[in-house]
């Protein structure tokens, strides 16, 4: 296992290199010039030239890319072009609200989805299963924006159940502001997760060993919880764990509409203003989280399926 972990961690290097190369090419090929944004509409030719030199934009692309790789290796991306804030503290400050929003939404959805999908698989084909399936399809068909607009107008403004938008630092004051975004997260994600988990469970339920167990006289409850559920966890674990790295990004749409100062909002704002250091930092962070997320998935596999050995 140890050698496997070391090998997988070493895979991070080519992954980060590949991501860095793609981001670098996209930024220099597609993104707008950050120097003009930094200096404003009254920028003079000399100021632009001086700033380009200071930021290294007049160097060859190869040299700029090498400097970028150095920043990735040390995770020191300096300061934001737009706000001149230290990027480390920007990301740190943004991660908290994003992670809180995302983890509350994610785990609430996960628990609810598991409960509902298990019930659907257990009562497969009956009115409960069909009813839930219909509601899931309807829920999946409604866009997140529609939920947000409805939630803010009806639940918050007209009924006063939740604040319309905003965020407070401090516990438990921030929970009040996260309640509706979390609810919307659950409503948006629930349908997808229930259908996937149900399919994974039913895939197991129709296998030969289940028929054998049934013919041996085991009860449905025992078959379901002791055999089907355990085997269905492999695809479910893959599906779930792969989303974990993205929890740190939160949800841009929710953060934007509810004025939550999270990292999703910071990232999209950085893209809009060609704030390359912030883009570099967040993409590097996501890449690292993806590698660790995949590794975590593989490790959890061994817990769920004893046949799997990591070599």
């Amino acid at each position, binding site marked *: 296992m140890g050698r496997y972990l070391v090998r997988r961690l070493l895979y991070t290097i080519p992954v980060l290199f590949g991501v860095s190369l793609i981001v670098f090419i996209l930024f220099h090929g597609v993104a*707008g010039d950050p120097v003009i944004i930094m200096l404003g509409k009254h920028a003079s030719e000399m100021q632009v030239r001086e700033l380009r030199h200071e930021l290294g934009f007049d160097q060859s692309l190869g040299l700029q890319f090498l400097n970028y790789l150095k920043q990735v290796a040390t995770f020191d991306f300096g300061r934001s072009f737009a706000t001149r804030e230290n990027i480390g503290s920007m990301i740190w400050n943004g991660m908290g609200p994003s992670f809180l929003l995302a983890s509350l939404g994610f785990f609430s959805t996960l628990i609810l989805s598991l409960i509902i999908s298990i019930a659907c698989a257990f009562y497969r084909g009956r009115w409960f299963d069909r009813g839930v399936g219909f509601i899931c399809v309807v829920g999946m068909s409604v866009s997140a924006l529609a939920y947000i607009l409805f939630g803010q107008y009806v639940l918050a403004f007209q009924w006063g159940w939740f604040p319309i938008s905003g965020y407070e630092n401090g516990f438990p004051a921030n929970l009040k502001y996260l309640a509706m975004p979390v609810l919307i997260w659950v409503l948006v994600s629930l349908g997808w997760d229930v259908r996937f988990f149900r399919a994974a469970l039913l895939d197991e339920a129709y296998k030969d060993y289940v028929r054998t167990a049934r013919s041996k006289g085991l009860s449905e409850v025992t078959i379901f919880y002791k055999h089907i559920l355990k085997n269905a966890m492999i695809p479910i674990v893959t599906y779930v764990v792969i989303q974990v790295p993205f929890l740190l990004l939160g949800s841009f749409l929710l953060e934007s509409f509810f*004025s939550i*100062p999270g990292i999703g909002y910071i990232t999209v704002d950085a893209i809009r203003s060609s704030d390359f250091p912030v883009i570099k930092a967040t993409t590097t962070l996501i890449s690292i989280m993806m590698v660790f997320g995949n590794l975590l998935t593989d490790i959890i596999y061994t817990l769920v399926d004893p046949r799997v050995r990591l070599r």
Partner: protein
Amino acid sequence: MVKLVLFLGCLLGVACSSPPSANPPNTVNVAMPARVKTLDPAYSDDRYSNLSVGKIYETLFQYHYLKRPYVLEGLLADGMPLISKDRKTLTFKIKKGVTFHDDPCFVATQGKGRELLASDFAYAWKRLADPKVRSSGWWIFDGKIVGLNDWRKKAGESKFTDYSLDVPGLKALDDHTLQITLTASSEQFLFSLAMPFTSPVPKEAVDLYGEDFARNPVGTGPYIYRRKESNLNSKIILDRNPNYRKEYYPKEGAPGDRENGLLEDAGKPLPRNDRVVIHIIEEDQPNWLNFMSGKLDVAGIPKDNFSSAVDEVGNLRPELSKAGVKLIREPASDLTFMGINLEDPILGKNKTLRQAISRAIDEEETIRFLYNGRAVPALGPIPPGVSGYDPSFKNPNRTFNLIEAKKLMAKAGYPEGKGLPELVYYQEQSTTGRQYSEVLIRQLGAIGVKLKIVPSTWPDLIKAIHAHRTQLFGMGWGADYPDGENFLQLFYSRNIGEFGTNYFSYKNGEFDSLYEQALRLPDGAARNKLYQKMARMVAEDVPAIFSSHRITYGVVHPWVKNVKNGSFGNANQKYYRIDPAIRAKLQ
């Protein structure tokens, strides 16, 4: 596993830091649609940073809150400056007894804010000039103060900037006297001294906080920034400065102000409230709903909610006026236009073609469709409310007339558009930009002009303009100060350049000569005459097709007093007064 739990716990802890304090009952709640980038005056080049910086810091001058047209008055300056005969030397008296906010940076006074001195201005303006600071406000003083460019050059050549080196044209004669010597007389220079860039900052704070000075502002303004509870991405809390000097609500205003209740607080001390909370609300719906629920005291009216708030004739809807909500509107002192690249071989040499295109654009329709009527057609470059604006001027090239436009197309050599290649139009990426492009395609299609739309980010648009890749481009210009010169400089040929503001490459020797004459004249009838002559030249030559001057609309709850919209002025909330009893009753 333990480390993972600890990490998650730390994240939760970050999300759950210090709890907020309750707002005082006379707190003013306002919103901004974009985050505040900085609280450092050297970098506040965007509207939202200015609106925050302007409450924490102060400048030598400010615009009178109520008077229109806008009038400069002393804020940190004790009256207007003494100006030499050649109009190049300006001597300012700084008000005595003005102190910086209390801050740990003032070690000598044990954290108590020390008095503002004339040397603080010299330091702050050198800081704008310091190439290591990379201030976006350097353009204000670039080439204007004797010796400052040389100082900047020396600073750029040395590893550490020596702020003790003198600048001959920037002197603190004593603690409360500042003298500036200009390289050339400039009637617009005083306006620059009302811009937040020029706010004095204490060297002690810059030295202590270094690169984090932008998040640890120390000004002389009516409000103090609450660092722990604020977040520039979501909410900014500004508390009354307990050591603020005696400044008073104005005693006179514009016609109609008294009748509108704007002089009820005449002579009363400022600020008129204890706290201002600025909520960053990017999206229109939550912004509007927060106003309607009383969480915001003043708000703009989003485009999508405009018709639910304002009727067809521009009055507030009955359900809002019954609730005591007031509607306020003010010209935005800006200009939107379609720029033309005069170096383009097709458009550059064919004035008649440009005039034809100009006549084919129905601005009234565009304003109705895009702005819900919240703009007036621009007939010239200078907007209403700005010196030099001529309300009697009728620009024949901005009178929509399809028949005339077709005649001009034929005269230009392209009858019904035959033989005219597709024209390329660059537009900044936005929903409004896309909608405007669709309207343009239809309107110009009526005279046979085909458009290819290229949506661009702002930096790409500027790059394309300066590289002369555009033929036509959509743009706007907001006034930096209320002087027509700020709009006419867009057509001055010396502003053509890789990063100049003459985006059109417009060259007219007579225009340039009038422009240079006007620069030497004080505000008055003689200068206005020159401005109007220049505006007519530009209207005739059509280097740009003027689109509109926008009007800002806002709504105010009945418990908020003293609200008057303005294009200039970054600390207007210091005049607002909340009636807590009315708020408690109606909210």
